[in-house]
């Protein structure tokens, strides 16, 4: 029927037989994007099924290394310790990390240093950063989270002694959970992927710069990170086709809906 027709039209012989399953193990920040990309890809190749697993950046890396998944997706730079796997990296998008606070908080602007101090636990009261006299409720992501990895690295919360996030931080296991906690807990502050930002929480300006795509692309907004796709060794035809699709104009357009395209 129709599938054959369109394949003939495109006149690309391999696509006619393109079928199989692609398993992507993605960090929660890359998961929605991967699902969108996967869905679009499947529209083009109905015989292919793209399965996107939730998980974390490390699991993305590990899954790719273990070949549990065809593609691992990480929302941070590959760590030194992970380089040994010898994975191929593809930066598919960029994402900013928004520092968000409960909408009732009065603080609009924070410096990188203030952010660092708040998350290290040196500043515990909003009054120290120009807010009202209320204790700061810090909300962080769990150990191993890509967002957390990127955030602590960029903001300097990670120092010579490693990740120094205050022990008094509430920990939530996903971007959504952080957002929900910050939205519901007075005097709280957290960080989430810019793509997930909505009006339930308030994003603060960092060093006076608003968290927007433009500001990230022009490098004025400092807290941003890459989204990586990782593969292990030779990839199958169908995975390669998927990667090609991601970097195609159509793929990057999908990226652009929530994140920052790389091409």
């Amino acid at each position, binding site marked *: 029927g129709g599938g054959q027709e369109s394949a003939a039209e495109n006149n690309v012989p391999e696509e006619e037989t393109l079928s199989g399953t692609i*398993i992507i193990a993605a960090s929660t920040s890359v*998961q*929605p994007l991967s*699902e969108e990309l996967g869905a679009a890809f499947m529209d083009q190749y109905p015989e292919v*099924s*793209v*399965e*996107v*697993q*939730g998980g974390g950046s490390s699991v993305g890396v590990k899954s790719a290394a*273990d070949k*549990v998944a065809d593609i691992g997706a990480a929302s941070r730079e590959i760590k030194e310790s992970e380089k040994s796997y010898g994975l191929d990296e593809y930066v598919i998008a960029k994402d900013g990390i928004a520092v968000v606070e409960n909408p009732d908080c009065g603080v609009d602007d924070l410096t990188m240093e203030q952010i660092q101090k708040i998350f290290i636990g040196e500043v515990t009261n909003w009054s120290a950063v120009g807010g009202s006299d209320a204790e700061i409720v810090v909300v962080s992501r769990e150990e191993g989270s890509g967002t957390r990895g990127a955030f602590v690295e960029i903001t300097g919360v990670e120092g010579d002694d490693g990740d120094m996030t205050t022990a008094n931080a509430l920990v*939530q*296991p*996903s*971007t*959504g*959970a952080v*957002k*929900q906690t910050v*939205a*519901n807990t007075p005097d709280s502050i957290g960080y989430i992927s810019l793509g997930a930002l909505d009006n*339930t929480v308030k994003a603060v300006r960092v060093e006076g710069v608003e968290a927007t795509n433009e500001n990230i692309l022009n490098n004025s907004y400092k807290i941003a990170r890459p989204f990586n796709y990782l593969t292990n060794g030779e990839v199958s035809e169908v995975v390669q086709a998927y990667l090609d699709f991601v970097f195609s104009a159509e793929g990057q357009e999908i990226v652009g809906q929530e994140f920052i395209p790389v091409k």
Partner: protein
Amino acid sequence: MTNYEETMELVSLNDNSRKKYYWKNHLFYIFIYLMAAITILVLVAIIGYILINGIGHINWEFLTSEPRSMGREGGIFSIIIGTLYLTVVAIAVSAPIGVLAAVYFAEYAKESKWVKTIRFGTEVLAGIPSIIFGLFGFTFFVIFLGFRWSILSGGLTLSMMILPTLIRATEEALKTVPQSYREGSLSLGATKWQTIIKVILPSCLSGILTGLILGIGRAVGETAAVMLTAGSALGLPESLMDPARTMSVHLYILASEGLSKEKTFATASLLIILVLLINTIASKVVQRFINKAKA
């Protein structure tokens, strides 16, 4: 005579030597009634809160359409299917093993050290927390056996989890079969196995069914172990090797990420209704059996 009335009646008597006791009596009953009332209230509060907020959002569309944008929109069709598959696999694997194991314990096992050991092993399995099952399923089925995150991995993990429940329920059911049935059958020259298959198992079928239904309930409600073994992919599973997301996992994700209050409540309500249904069926089965036995 109701007990509270009895107490009150006694309190009204003017008997000095027992005054102290009446006072204690009062406190005792107040405490008991209060605690019972709190428990019931909590039950009503939880179920009521969730159903009131959720039941309005359950409709045909919700049940039959695919979830979109991580469940923020759309329905939960693929999740219902995933739950179904996973439960079926879990039951299909554990039911025969569980029932036969129970038959062994109830009909064959002699009280030896060895039998005590495997009994203890069964009890231990029942006590292992689900997250440990999850860890195990992850290293064993997902990685070691290479089943990946799949209905198979999840189903096998779940079947291990519900095995003790099944064994226990079946064994209890077998114990209720009067010894006289066994004697009657054996005295007619039936072998032990014939006796079990033709007389004993049929006469405690409902007990076994109840066990199965309880097992299903547990499988449907499990979250942690399923997440680590069957994954949490949203797609419609098509084979045993596909990953799946169950309703409990979906509810967890919706709740923790705050994706959509409305869908969260709807999913929670559906889960409660499902459990209610499962419980009712279980007790109906038992009731029918009792009626049949009486007739």
